[in-house]
């Protein structure tokens, strides 16, 4: 014998514990290999168990009740005990859906109650007791009252009646009652108030109540319609879904069953269900349809059927019959009959065929329809439910009634929502015009209040109507609105469909092209960071951030942005355009637009316009910098940030001479120009150089440019060269001049640099300066003065006289022309050289090429008397060189061809200086070749004009000394000059011995007053040595050192007059003596 498996032991143990002889409580199922009949067997067994249990319980209760009822006339009898037993039994029947049995029990209870004569006081005790709370059986906890034995007649009877009525209510009585009552109420009140109402408040309230009643009626009507299979005609909108899905199913005691002769109707309904396919939404939007039922009707209906077998779940949910299963709705399984419960009294509905195949959906519909026909007594309502067309008509009427009344009561949201429902009906019936109008209203409300979720439900419908109506403008704007709704509301695929519609329309020939507002889809802002600052007249590139809410790339054929000046509004707006097509990616895009020169001011972004295909669009909105929030209705609150600032005209670059000190004349010198950008990039700048008159640019040389080091000039002379003179920072780059232009290298665009120009001043005079034009798209013209000079300033003095003590020298010119009075044999000329440059000069040689009439003394080579070369001359210091010359024979007049009118001082020197400071070694000649030595030594030539001495002074004028007491203001003084003839006047000897000499006293009338003849003739003997004194009375007028009156001889050549003192001189005039007359005491 095989040992029993382990589960057998467990099962035995369970049997011992739970089963008894009376009751078989354990059941063994072998589900290892269940055959086809296994589940049927199981079901049968379970049902049998339940029935047995129920039977036993009922038997027990009935036994008890029988006992109690036998004793009911005995004094110990208690009605309460009887009531509790009886009601429990009735309740048990109710649970088992044995309503006839339950009703019978209630009837017996009532009978027994009346028999026992336990009547109590009658009448209401509490508020509401006088009303028939028929549909609220649980209003008062009656069981408790019974327990307390304090129940009242009325309440008790009411309770009993309720219990009895509950078991007998027809299907959907409540719904039908509500509908008919509502409709009656509406009619009644409407006719009552049809003449107008009193106060606006009352009127408003009236309409509101009307609207509410309509809505209630509408909801119940929809429920009935759904039950009989018109659910597919009810729009699955939020309002309908909310109304119906939270409204519980009717709870009939027993769900109506299918009448036996209804197979043709079932077929018709099934056909209807089959034909009903959900209308595809526009744009391919697929949503799980909103529910119209609180729970699945199929399950609910089958659950509420009496004694229904659990059946096969797939069969239960398969509302549509398949080919095998369409044999017939009413074919109870034969074997079930054998186990049917044998209650004799009870015969409700189809209880007999207890284990039934579950009803299919079509069957439920038909059953409900039949049941409703029994329930509804109102003919009109019956008609409304008779066909789908009638149903829709009634549905539309109710919706319209509700909407109108809500609108009149100012409950616009309620009203508009129902408008949407009306629109849906029109939409379905292809009355697109009406539908679109109503949808517009709904969308406007939701969009205006920003309830995007609700808007997303309706907007696609509106778009579809507009598309069918060929309302391109409306359709486009609907598509744009759909795109601009929150991204989470639609799938990417759907959003792409919206976009493709926009693009398709944009590229098609539109009949009435309209500008499209895409403010919510394409937003723009300036870039983060500082705003673009431009100088006046400069073009630029404006970089703008565009946010695209389109799900895909979108091509913009053109794009332009307006700039609005913030400072002056009358200027209007200027558009900057992008010429080429731009592809916007979803999200953030940075585009750059060429910006033509703008007027000074600050600018904000205005409007974005552009074209998609042939469609023009505009966008007004500025993005906040993120795509997350697309609350475009708030955008107007955003402050607009300037994006561009164009500065007032100003100089952008400063040009200055690098050195202020003089440069060497006639040598090629580096002229430095400091190019200093003033907060401005000189990228691409071109420097035009136009040398001034007398200046020549040495084009054979390269120009040089280097970084300008501040402080270089001051540091050069220091012993320790500072770090900033390192070769890196002072890197010198060579440039070439092309057509008078120099293109500045880019590395200098933002730094101060020095441009070195090799330049030679070719004129003898002072340099006039270098005009330099700066051209950087705009022109800056700047003239830079450059000072050129000779290395030395030369002055000459006659330093030594050889034999004559009365030498009068008169310097006529600083340049070195002088004359002297007396003929001398030999004289020394001291040439004083003053350095004019900030560089050290080394003189290696100097010689004087004398003019005719002079000759060198000594060696005769024109070299200075002593040789001390090289002579170093420091900047700004003086040096003197002494030449010894004598007067030679004047050359004959006919040798004029060789006449040399001036003497020339030649100096060979070198210069050692920095171009950063001033004069320096000339720019090296590239072709200097082997005679480098020569090139190094520069030659300076300076003209000296020596005049031969004046031979014949004829007259001497001497100013005689003044009285020693001095001069005082207001005191007369006699000025006396002595005129002496130095040489006999030979020409006039023949006529007379006397010669009339014209004299004239020159005074400054502010200083002197004179008495006597100012001008006159005096006679002077023509003999040599004759003299005469001329005196004149003068009155000094001002105190101080003043020039005394001077005696001039206008008729005599100045060259023939020798004066003593020779030059202008001053005399001291004292202030007037103090007058004491005013101080004498009286």
């Amino acid at each position, binding site marked *: 014998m095989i040992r029993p498996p382990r589960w057998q032991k467990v099962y035995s143990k369970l049997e011992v514990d739970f089963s008894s002889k009376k009751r078989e409580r354990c059941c063994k199922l072998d589900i290892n290999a269940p055959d086809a009949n296994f589940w049927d067997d199981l079901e049968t067994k379970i049902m049998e168990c339940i029935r047995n249990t129920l039977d036993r319980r009922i038997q027990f209760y009935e036994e008890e009740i029988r006992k109690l009822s036998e004793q009911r006339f005995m004094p110990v009898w208690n009605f309460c005990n009887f009531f509790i037993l009886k009601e429990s039994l009735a309740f048990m029947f109710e649970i088992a859906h044995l309503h006839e049995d339950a009703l019978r029990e209630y009837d017996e209870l009532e009978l027994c109650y009346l028999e026992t004569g336990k009547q109590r006081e009658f009448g209401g005790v509490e508020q509401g007791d006088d009303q028939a709370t028929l549909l609220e059986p649980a209003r008062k906890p009656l069981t408790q009252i019974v327990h307390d034995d304090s129940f009242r007649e009325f309440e008790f009877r009411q309770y009993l009646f309720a219990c009895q009525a509950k078991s007998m209510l027809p299907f959907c009585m409540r719904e039908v009652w509500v509908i008919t009552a509502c409709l009656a109420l509406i009619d009644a009140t409407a006719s009552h108030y049809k003449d107008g109402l009193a106060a606006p408040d009352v009127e408003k309230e009236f309409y509101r109540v009307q609207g509410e009643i309509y809505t209630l009626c509408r909801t119940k009507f929809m429920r009935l319609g759904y039950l009989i299979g018109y659910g597919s005609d009810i729009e699955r909108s*939020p*309002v309908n*879904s*909310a109304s119906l*899905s*939270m*409204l519980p199913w009717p709870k009939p005691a027993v769900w109506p069953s299918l009448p036996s002769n209804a197979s043709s109707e079932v077929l018709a309904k099934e056909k209807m269900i089959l034909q009903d396919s959900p209308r595809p939404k526009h744009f391919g939007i697929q949503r*799980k*349809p*909103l*529910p119209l039922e609180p729970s699945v009707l199929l399950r609910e209906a089958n659950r509420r059927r009496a004694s229904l077998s659990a059946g096969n779940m797939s069969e239960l949910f398969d509302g549509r019959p398949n080919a095998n299963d369409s044999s017939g709705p009413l074919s109870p399984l034969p074997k079930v009959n054998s186990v049917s419960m044998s209650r004799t009294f009870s015969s409700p509905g189809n209880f007999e065929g207890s284990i039934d195949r579950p009803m299919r959906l079509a069957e439920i519909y038909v059953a409900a329809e039949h049941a409703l026909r029994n329930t509804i007594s109102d003919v009109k309502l019956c008609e409304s439910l008779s066909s789908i067309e009638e149903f829709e008509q009634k549905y539309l009427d109710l919706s319209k009634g509700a909407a109108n009344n*809500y609108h009149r009561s*100012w*409950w*616009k*949201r*309620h009203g508009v*929502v129902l408008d949407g429902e009306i629109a849906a009906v029109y939409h379905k019936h292809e009355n697109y015009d009406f539908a679109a109008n109503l949808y517009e209203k709904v969308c406007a409300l939701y969009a*205006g*209040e*920003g*309830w995007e*979720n*609700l808007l997303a*439900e309706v907007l696609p419908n509106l778009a579809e109507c507009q598309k069918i109506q060929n309302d391109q403008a409306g359709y486009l704007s609907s598509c744009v609105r759909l795109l601009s709704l929150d991204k989470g509301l639609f799938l990417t695929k759907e959003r792409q469909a919206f976009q493709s519609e926009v693009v398709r329309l944009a590229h098609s020939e539109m009949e009435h092209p309209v500008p499209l507002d895409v403010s919510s889809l394409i937003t723009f802002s300036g870039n983060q960071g500082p705003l673009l600052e431009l100088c006046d007249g400069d073009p630029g590139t404006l970089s703008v951030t565009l946010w695209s809410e389109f799900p895909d790339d979108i091509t913009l054929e053109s794009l332009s942005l307006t700039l609005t000046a913030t400072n002056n509004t009358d200027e209007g707006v200027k558009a900057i355009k992008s010429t080429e097509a731009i592809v916007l990616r979803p999200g953030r895009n940075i585009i750059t637009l060429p910006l033509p020169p703008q007027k000074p001011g600050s600018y904000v972004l205005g409007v974005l316009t552009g074209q998609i295909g042939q469609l023009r669009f505009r966008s007004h909105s500025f993005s906040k910098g993120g795509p*997350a*929030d697309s*609350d475009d*209705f*708030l955008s107007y*609150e955003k402050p607009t940030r300037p994006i561009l600032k164009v500065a007032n005209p100003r100089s952008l670059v400063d040009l200055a001479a690098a050195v202020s000190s003089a440069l060497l004349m006639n040598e090629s010198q580096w002229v430095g120009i400091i190019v200093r950008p003033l907060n401005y990039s000189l990228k691409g700048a071109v420097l035009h150089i136009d040398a001034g008159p007398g200046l020549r640019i040495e084009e054979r040389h390269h120009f040089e440019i280097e970084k300008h080091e501040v402080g270089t000039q001051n540091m050069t002379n220091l012993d320790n060269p500072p770090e900033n003179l390192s070769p890196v920072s002072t890197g010198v780059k060579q440039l070439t001049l092309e057509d008078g232009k120099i293109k500045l290298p880019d590395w200098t665009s933002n730094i101060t640099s020095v441009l070195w120009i090799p330049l030679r001043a070719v004129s003898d005079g002072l340099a006039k300066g270098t005009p330099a034009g700066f051209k950087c798209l705009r022109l800056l013209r700047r003239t830079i003065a450059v000072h050129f000079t000779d290395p030395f300033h030369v002055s000459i003095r006659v330093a030594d006289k050889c034999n004559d003590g009365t030498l009068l020298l008169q310097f006529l010119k600083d340049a070195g022309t002088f004359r002297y009075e007396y003929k001398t044999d030999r004289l020394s000329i001291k040439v004083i050289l003053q350095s004019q440059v900030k560089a050290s000069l080394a003189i290696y040689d100097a010689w004087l090429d004398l003019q005719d009439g002079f000759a060198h003394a000594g060696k005769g080579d024109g070299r200075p008397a002593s040789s001390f070369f090289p002579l170093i001359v420091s900047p700004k210091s003086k040096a003197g060189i002494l030449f010894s010359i004598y007067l030679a024979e004047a050359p004959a007049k006919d040798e004029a061809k060789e006449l040399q009118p001036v003497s020339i001082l030649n100096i060979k020197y070198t210069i050692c200086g920095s171009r950063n400071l001033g004069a320096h070694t000339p720019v090296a000649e590239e072709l200097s070749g082997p005679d480098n030595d020569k090139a190094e030594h520069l030659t300076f030539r300076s003209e000296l004009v020596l005049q031969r001495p004046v031979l014949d002074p004829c007259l001497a004028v001497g100013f005689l000394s003044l009285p020693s007491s001095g001069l005082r203001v207001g005191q007369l003084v006699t000025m006396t000059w002595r005129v002496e003839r130095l040489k006999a006047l030979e020409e006039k000897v023949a006529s007379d011995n006397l010669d009339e000499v014209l004299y004239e006293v020159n005074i400054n009338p502010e200083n002197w007053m004179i008495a006597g003849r100012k001008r006159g003739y005096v006679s002077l003997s023509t003999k040599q040595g004759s003299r005469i004194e001329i005196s004149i009375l003068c009155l000094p007028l001002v105190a101080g050192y003043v020039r005394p009156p001077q005696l001039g001889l206008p008729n005599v050549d100045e060259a023939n007059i020798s004066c003593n003192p020779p030059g202008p001189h001053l005399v001291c005039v004292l202030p007037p003596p103090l007058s004491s007359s005013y101080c004498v005491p009286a």
Partner: protein
Amino acid sequence: MANTACFMIVSKNDIPIYEAEVGTVPKKEDAAHQHQFILHAALDIVQDMAWTTSAMFLKAIDRFNDLVVSVYIKVIHTRLMLLHDSRNDDGIKSFFQEVHELYIKTLLNPLYLPGSRITSSHFDTKVRALARKYL
């Protein structure tokens, strides 16, 4: 805690600026917009009621089958609306008061533009915590 509760802040322009499902029962996907719809429709009633009472807390102004709408109207006419199925009036009132305070704190944030959507996750967390506490 309430099984179903949908809390919403509606700005004075009737724009929803905050929305949270704070019930314990997860929101059904197919009923996505029902709560919004009910609350939106209730604005009609709030608009009427607001002028008839000076109370800030208007309890159960609208009912939709088993669901009730309670509203807390603020001085600046921002409305805190709660769709709920519980009957715990005191808890709802406390909830509103606390959220009111929270909202005022949000308003004090200089970076928050009054009338715009409240996106602060901190606010959201707090509101949900309050809902757990009071509803």
